[in-house]
């Protein structure tokens, strides 16, 4: 925004809170405008009173240590110097191979460059990468897609070979590569830089699950299967390395982080589910193999049943959800069959029930930072369903999710009728067969 104003001849100063300093500077660099004028106020702005914000304006810019208003005014009036005029342009092409070195030194290099999740990796030697590339019929230099840490950052491009490199690092085997390529091609990053520490969870459907020996039983969402673990981790590492990084303060701003970011991929228990598989619901054939990508991971509610008071329990979990992030439900087959016995013979019926029963008073719905930033402007602009939610009286109960935002997956080892309600907006369901 600021860059485009400058280009239309309008001198501009962008104001940020101090924690965003390094991020704002590297975004300016990536936009080809490293000399962009920026001024900073203390963190946080959210929840501060007007008086407190006035002290920010009359106070000191915590980054430059000079008066804030002086920074702003000089940013608009101080004449451009030589350096400002030419702007900086650079071709950041990435090398294919690194300088040869000992194993110990290379492992340290990968850690110090933030190329790993700080757990041990398998070094991507030429031999191992060539081996991994046998897992697909596609050419190593074929462009798989683009990724970026968030929508105001520039897209980076990735090839089959670069995906293979990160797959080797994760400990994956060649037969897993088509799944990993599909996840990379989804265009959804598993390393969002958002201050809300999001994570990306992927569900695999179709014949590929059994071809690779994926787990949909006991310990399905845990460290109990090679394919689940390696595919999830490959998706996490390629997101980090193929989008320009995920470095705290620069390309990662998640205040509290998310442990799901290590590895979070599993297979639906289609054979033991009373309902239609997820990918078939999204238009794939049962014999197709597909990967679904859920963006969220911010809350995880849990329960058993359905027991006698299941409606109260599920309602409590739905209304405790963060209402900018819709849930997807993971039901153990025992729980799924329990719901079928109650008459929910189709996933859609239970989804409908959840949408009808996820209720909050309007007052609480609007008292949320994300809703204010993302949804409120849309409501004001008359976009439904937000506009009606805005009209509701403070104590009026409103439905916080639409049915089409909620999904259900069946997985578990049937040692307990357990279920989980995980924050996850289904952003994409992509073909795996296309990458065989």
């Amino acid at each position, binding site marked *: 925004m600021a860059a485009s*104003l400058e280009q239309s*001849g309008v001198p501009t100063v962008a104001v940020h809170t101090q924690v965003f300093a390094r991020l704002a500077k590297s975004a300016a660099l990536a936009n080809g405008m490293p000399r962009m004028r920026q001024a900073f106020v203390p963190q946080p702005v959210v929840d501060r009173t007007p008086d407190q*914000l006035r002290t920010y304006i009359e106070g000191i810019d915590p980054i430059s240590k000079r008066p804030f208003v002086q920074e702003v005014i000089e940013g608009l009036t101080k004449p451009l110097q030589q350096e*400002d005029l030419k702007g900086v342009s650079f071709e950041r092409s*990435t090398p*294919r191979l690194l300088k040869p070195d000992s194993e110990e030194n290379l492992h340290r290099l*990968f850690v110090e460059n933030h190329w790993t999740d700080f757990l041990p990796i398998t070094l991507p030697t030429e031999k191992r990468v060539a081996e991994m590339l046998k897992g697909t019929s596609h050419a190593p230099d074929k462009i798989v897609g683009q990724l970026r840490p968030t929508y105001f950052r520039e897209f980076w*491009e990735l090839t089959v070979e670069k995906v293979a490199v990160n797959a080797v690092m994760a400990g994956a085997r060649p037969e897993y590569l088509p799944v990993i390529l599909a996840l990379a091609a989804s265009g959804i990053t598993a390393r969002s830089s958002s201050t809300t520490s999001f994570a990306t969870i992927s569900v695999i459907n179709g014949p590929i699950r059994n071809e690779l020996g994926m787990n949909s039983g006991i310990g399905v969402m845990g460290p109990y299967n090679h394919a689940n673990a390696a595919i999830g981790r490959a998706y996490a590492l390629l997101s980090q390395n193929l989008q320009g990084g995920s470095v705290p303060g620069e390309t990662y701003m998640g205040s509290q982080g998310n442990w799901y970011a290590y590895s979070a991929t599993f297979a639906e228990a289609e054979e033991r589910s009373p309902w239609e598989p997820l990918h078939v619901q999204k238009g794939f054939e049962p014999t197709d193999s597909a990967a679904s990508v859920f963006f969220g991971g911010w809350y995880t509610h849990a329960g058993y049943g359905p027991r006698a008071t299941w409606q109260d329990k599920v309602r409590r979990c739905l209304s405790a959800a963060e209402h900018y992030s819709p849930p997807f439900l993971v039901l153990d087959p025992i729980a799924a069959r329990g719901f079928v016995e109650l008459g929910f013979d189709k996933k859609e019926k239970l989804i409908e029930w959840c949408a009808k029963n996820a209720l909050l008073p309007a007052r609480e719905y609007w008292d949320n930072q994300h809703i204010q930033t993302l949804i409120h402007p849309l409501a004001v602009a008359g976009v439904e369903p937000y506009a009606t939610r805005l009209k509701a009286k403070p104590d009026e109960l409103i439905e916080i999710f639409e049915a089409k935002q909620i999904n259900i997956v069946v997985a578990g080892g049937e040692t307990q009728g357990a279920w989980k309600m995980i924050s996850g907006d289904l952003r994409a369901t992509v073909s795996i067969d296309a990458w065989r």
Partner: protein
Amino acid sequence: MAERVTAHDPRGYPPKVTGKRLASRLDNLERKTVYLVDCLFDNSEVFMEQLRQWFAARLPSVDARIIKPRQSWVDDPDMRARIAADGSAAILGVGL
């Protein structure tokens, strides 16, 4: 020396970045119109109002006007066109 290994570089390919020039600066803000762009962040409206009041109190000759894009995170060309047409400078905040 431990046996040396060659490994791949795990990073993706960044887009080619072309340099862009900054707009030339004003000699001063006297009698100029400065747009205060509220980026719709939670509470940034209150911040921009305080900034407007600061200008009105300290630099009354500056015509500071608050303006909002239609949607957060999305470029708003019409709003930019209006700023370019009616304004001489812009202050954006508070966020990215």
